[in-house]
């Protein structure tokens, strides 16, 4: 988040253009959470599709309420010790005037609060990809509530809040490489180290059940990401948001191509999953850096992140931790790459005057970026692991093994994603119904379909 834009000598006035722009950006960021649900949902097996969709979708419910009650206050209230915020007028979001401006900006507090809410929603949803197939839904909802309270809200304050330690140190995180992606990726790693692998990991085939869904999700994420990134300047008065928009597109394209090239050389094919994953890796990497680099720098950031993430997704097989859908490989590695690359590629000409190593700035900014990256990484990893451990010890984090094998959708949601029983008409059987009017539909055979 940028330091205050100084428009004129006078105090900022409410800008209708910026306010409208930010409301649209907020809606775009909201779309990213269901998009993520489909991105993840297509990657799991048929039997756990709904659970994967729900683990993201439920975040829209839980985090929204907590944000209003106290989340916004912790993240963006007055600073306490550089660690968290608190302002009583933000509690319940009730003591705020409708035209009251976010300090230093031309948009109302409510607009800023709703934009930031969407970030708070998607961050815990990102974690869920690592936990596919095996976590009790109630345990997950409790985890989200505790995690955003203890981890996300304070970390958002560190990185973006006035007085937060990373913000004061000069760590550049334009739109959430540190607060969102490293934070979620490190949390994912912490939780899976506690809860363990899926039944059959490295033995059973766990192919994605629907790559078209993955592609749909990735495409919508890309679209929503323009709101996420370009909106993070909180206005449109000086063109920085436009640079960010362009760099978002450029880095994502470069990362997709880089991932595909790596894959072709290493595994012999240009895969659909690789294209979708490469795009997301590029989006993640440009998120912290896009305001600081030139379009050529964005190509470098995207290409480096695309290759690094493509290499990183294989680590889970080597090290034996089961990050189901590669949240660590894509979000943590991509986030770390993008955040550190600011220290190399920052031009000093756009978002801030801090220059990276390649633009004559020395190692100063790289050091600041590293402090932000590893501070957030360590805190999130440790606290998330402790939270998962406590939940596991009290209510149990995982579903029973039998339920995991037969499919978490049926056990946790009493539904299945698809009904193929009627496809193609099937065979006809004589109706046993008493009369035409009162006839029940023929009972579909209760067949479990699995990929």
């Amino acid at each position, binding site marked *: 988040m940028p330091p205050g834009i100084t428009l004129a000598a006078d105090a900022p006035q409410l800008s209708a253009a910026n306010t409208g722009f930010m409301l649209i950006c907020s809606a775009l960021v909201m779309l990213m959470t269901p998009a993520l649900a489909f991105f993840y949902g297509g990657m799991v097996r048929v039997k756990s599709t709904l659970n994967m969709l729900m683990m993201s979708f439920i975040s829209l419910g839980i985090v929204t309420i907590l944000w209003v009650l106290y989340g916004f206050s912790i993240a963006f209230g007055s600073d306490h010790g550089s660690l968290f915020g608190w302002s009583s007028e933000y509690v319940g979001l009730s003591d705020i005037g409708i035209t009251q401006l976010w300090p230093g900006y031309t948009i109302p507090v409510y607009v800023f609060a709703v934009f930031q809410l969407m970030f708070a929603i998607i961050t815990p949803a990102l974690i869920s990809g690592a936990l596919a197939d095996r976590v009790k839904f109630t345990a997950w909802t409790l985890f989200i509530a505790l995690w955003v309270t203890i981890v996300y809200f304070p970390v958002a304050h560190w990185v973006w809040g006035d007085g937060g330690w990373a913000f004061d140190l000069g760590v550049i995180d334009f739109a959430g490489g540190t607060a969102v992606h490293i934070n979620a990726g490190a949390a994912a790693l912490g939780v899976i180290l506690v809860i363990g692998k899926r039944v059959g990991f490295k033995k059973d085939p766990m192919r994605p059940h629907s790559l078209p869904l993955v592609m749909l999700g990735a495409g919508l994420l890309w679209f929503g990401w323009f709101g996420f990134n370009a909106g993070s300047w909180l206005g449109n008065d000086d063109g920085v948001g436009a640079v960010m928009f362009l760099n978002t597109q450029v880095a994502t394209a470069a990362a997709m191509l880089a991932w595909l090239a790596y894959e072709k050389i290493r595994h012999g094919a240009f*895969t659909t*999953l*690789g294209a979708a994953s490469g795009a997301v890796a590029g989006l993640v990497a440009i998120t912290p850096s896009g305001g600081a680099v030139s379009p050529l720098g964005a190509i470098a950031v995207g290409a480096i992140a695309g290759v690094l993430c*493509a290499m990183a997704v*294989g680590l889970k*097989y080597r090290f034996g931790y089961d990050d189901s859908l590669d949240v660590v490989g894509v979000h943590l590695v991509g986030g770390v790459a993008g955040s550190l690359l600011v220290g190399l590629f920052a031009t000093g000409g756009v978002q801030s005057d801090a220059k990276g190593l390649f633009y004559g700035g020395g190692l100063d900014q790289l050091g600041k970026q590293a402090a932000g990256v590893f501070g957030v990484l360590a805190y999130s990893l440790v606290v998330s692991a402790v939270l998962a451990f406590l939940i596991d010890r009290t209510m149990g984090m995982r579903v029973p093994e039998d339920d995991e094998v037969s499919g978490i959708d049926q056990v946790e949601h009493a539904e299945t994603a698809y009904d193929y029983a009627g496809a193609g008409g099937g065979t006809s059987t004589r109706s046993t119904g008493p009369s035409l009017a009162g006839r029940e539909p023929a009972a579909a055979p209760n067949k479990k379909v699995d990929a």
Partner: protein
Amino acid sequence: MKLITAVVKPHRLDEIKEALQAFGVHGLTVTEASGYGRQRGHTEVYRGAEYTVDLVPKIRIEVLAEDEDVEQLLEVVVKAARTGKIGDGKVWSVPVETAVRVRTGERGPDAL
């Protein structure tokens, strides 16, 4: 009477059907099938994780024929199914004891 069964590549179905019609075969049964022969399926890659998919899609064509036509029919099917590449499939025939046309009750060669 014999039952000729062919398990072949799905995209050869039209050629085989036309060749059988040209020969004078009145009916056949087609089933979707999957299996493998010497080629042992194929490999798929998902984020670098390779999966060997053993069973590949095939179709199974079944035709009832009179004994004296069997040799020629085998030739016809093989010619229409052949692409020359690995995985073209197999054709075989087995003896059939009886056949009955459901509509009329005719038996044996009359039922074909």
